[in-house]
């Protein structure tokens, strides 16, 4: 008998982290933030796209060789085809590997993969390959569409796509049934392929929720590009190369807000609240998800703008419009997201990820062992060491916080006029400490 949980995939959840650990982490976050503001460097260190070190020539040749790129594309396409077989023809059971692949390997797995190897999703993306093959078949150029992509749309399509994903994952009561995943992915495929036909393949960099997410996380890896050449950079220097575009704040707000909501919706106060409200559960959850994402977006925007700027035009290089600040600072939320995602999803990825790899051997749930992983069993070592797990979770959150504060500081002193350097950062610091403290609070089980 295989059971479908009320909300999404997954069995047991992590134990709440102990209160003393959470308080210690919050205090550390607060003291470090204060130190960064008071003591850190006063001239920007990361803003002029640090050159970085050239990657070894052999590695650069391999990564940039068309043959290697085609190997990755074919791998991505074959694996997608294999999972699509399970998705379309496999039985509608929670152990159908299509579900685990979609919610665990793709959505959660893309974070460590991009952190280690850079923009991997772009290299594997089956929708990119489909676009490329279509262009080849029609002798067109995959890069150009009917019209150029309008710059003012920026990352907004990706923000919408990400919100569509988290709604499917966290709100849709049918999320663990194949039908809803089929529908979601069919819509995704259609939007991607048609969008690329209209705008060219720039569409994927702006609208594909998975690729945009992966590309942003990859900015925290050591892999970067300088005039097209593969270089190694420190993650903070690499992070500063995120191009600010309209909608970047919305993207980070959806990523952070939705993960916070995922923690919050399992707490007893929320479950009771849903019961007391007595409305449709789906509607209540959808509104709450929107409120969480909106709250992150609004607090961040307000904090980024809570500074003095020079209004005189032509007053030097610190001449920046206040309304442009949120998108210019939004990259600094990425480490906070990665830290919190690590804390929130680590056991889920390790344990559900193993289940999925085992299930992948049996896509029709008929006892096959096609990939040879079918006889493996899940190792629950991590769950059996809850103290270690709690320390890892807290370290991830604090590390993300520190990197976020440093990235915001470095950008702020390059943008703000000298007399606003300190006061102009206080709002952002407060908001970031707020995010971290809320994250720790949710990891305590939101008691």
């Amino acid at each position, binding site marked *: *008998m*295989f*059971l479908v*949980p*009320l909300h999404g995939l*997954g*069995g*047991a*959840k*992590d*134990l*709440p982290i102990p*209160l003393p650990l*959470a*308080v210690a982490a*919050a*205090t550390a976050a*607060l003291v470090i*933030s*204060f130190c960064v*503001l*008071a003591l850190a460097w006063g001239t920007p260190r990361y803003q002029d796209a640090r050159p970085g070190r050239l990657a070894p020539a052999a590695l650069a040749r391999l990564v940039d060789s068309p043959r290697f790129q085609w190997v990755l594309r074919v791998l991505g396409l074959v694996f997608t085809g294999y999972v699509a077989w399970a998705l379309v023809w496999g039985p509608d059971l929670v152990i159908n590997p299509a579900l685990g692949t979609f919610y665990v390997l793709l959505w959660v797995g893309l974070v460590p993969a991009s952190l280690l190897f850079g923009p991997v999703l772009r290299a594997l993306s089956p929708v990119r390959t489909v676009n490329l093959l279509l262009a080849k078949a029609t002798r067109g150029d995959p890069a150009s569409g009917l019209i150029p992509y309008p710059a003012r749309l920026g990352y907004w399509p990706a923000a919408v796509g990400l919100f569509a994903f988290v709604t499917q994952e966290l709100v849709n009561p049918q999320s663990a049934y194949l039908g809803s995943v089929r529908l979601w992915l069919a819509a995704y495929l259609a939007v991607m392929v048609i969008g690329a036909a209209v705008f060219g393949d720039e569409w994927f960099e702006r609208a594909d929720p998975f690729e945009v997410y992966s590309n942003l996380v990859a900015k925290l890896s050591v892999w970067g590009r300088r005039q097209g050449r593969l270089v190694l950079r420190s993650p903070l220097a690499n992070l500063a190369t995120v191009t600010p575009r309209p909608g970047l704040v919305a993207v980070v707000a959806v990523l952070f807000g939705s993960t916070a909501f995922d923690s919050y919706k*399992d707490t*007893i*106060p929320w*479950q*009771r609240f849903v*019961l007391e409200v007595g409305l449709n*559960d789906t509607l209540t959850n959808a509104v709450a998800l929107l409120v969480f994402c909106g709250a992150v977006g609004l607090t961040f925007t307000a904090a980024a703008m809570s500074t003095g700027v020079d209004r005189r035009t032509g007053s030097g290089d610190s001449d920046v419009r206040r309304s442009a600040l949120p998108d210019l600072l939004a990259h600094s939320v990425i480490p906070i997201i990665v830290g919190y995602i690590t804390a929130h999803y680590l*056991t889920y990825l390790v*344990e559900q990820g193993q289940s999925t790899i085992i299930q992948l051997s049996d896509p029709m749930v008929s006892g096959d062992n096609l990939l040879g992983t079918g006889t493996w069993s*899940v190792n*629950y070592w991590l*769950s*059996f060491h*809850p103290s270690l797990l709690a320390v890892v979770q807290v370290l991830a959150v604090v590390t993300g916080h520190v990197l976020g504060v440093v990235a915001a500081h470095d950008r702020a002193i390059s943008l703000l006029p000298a007399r606003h350097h*300190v*006061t102009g950062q*206080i709002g952002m*610091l*407060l908001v970031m*400490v*707020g995010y971290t*403290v*809320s994250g*720790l*609070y949710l990891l*305590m*089980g939101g*008691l």
Partner: protein
Amino acid sequence: MSRVSHLCFSALLALVLLAGCGSDESTDEVTPKKDDSGVATIDITFEGDTVKPQGARVEVVAGEPVKLRIDADQGGELHVHSSPEQELEYSAGTTEQTITLDQPGVVDVESHDLEQLVVQLEVR
């Protein structure tokens, strides 16, 4: 600058303390009572469209049996979202089911008929 830092520091401290205090007051963790043979027991009552408790958090010990005593006016199923998941059937009247959870974590026990969380077992 020092005044600003001071203000900022105090504000943050207040925020942390607030978060710390918030966690103390509303904790309603229950230690389950023991039956005559010393087995932790949780009472669950179904009546029409309602179930009691409605999402209580209960601390249980990993590897030790937990008895669920279910009083119901009609039969149904409870779903235990451990890894792997388990399903417990109950009939009208009183049903006793014993489960043992080996792996530390938080395990939801839900009624899918009512779409409600009944208890959250905190396995330590």
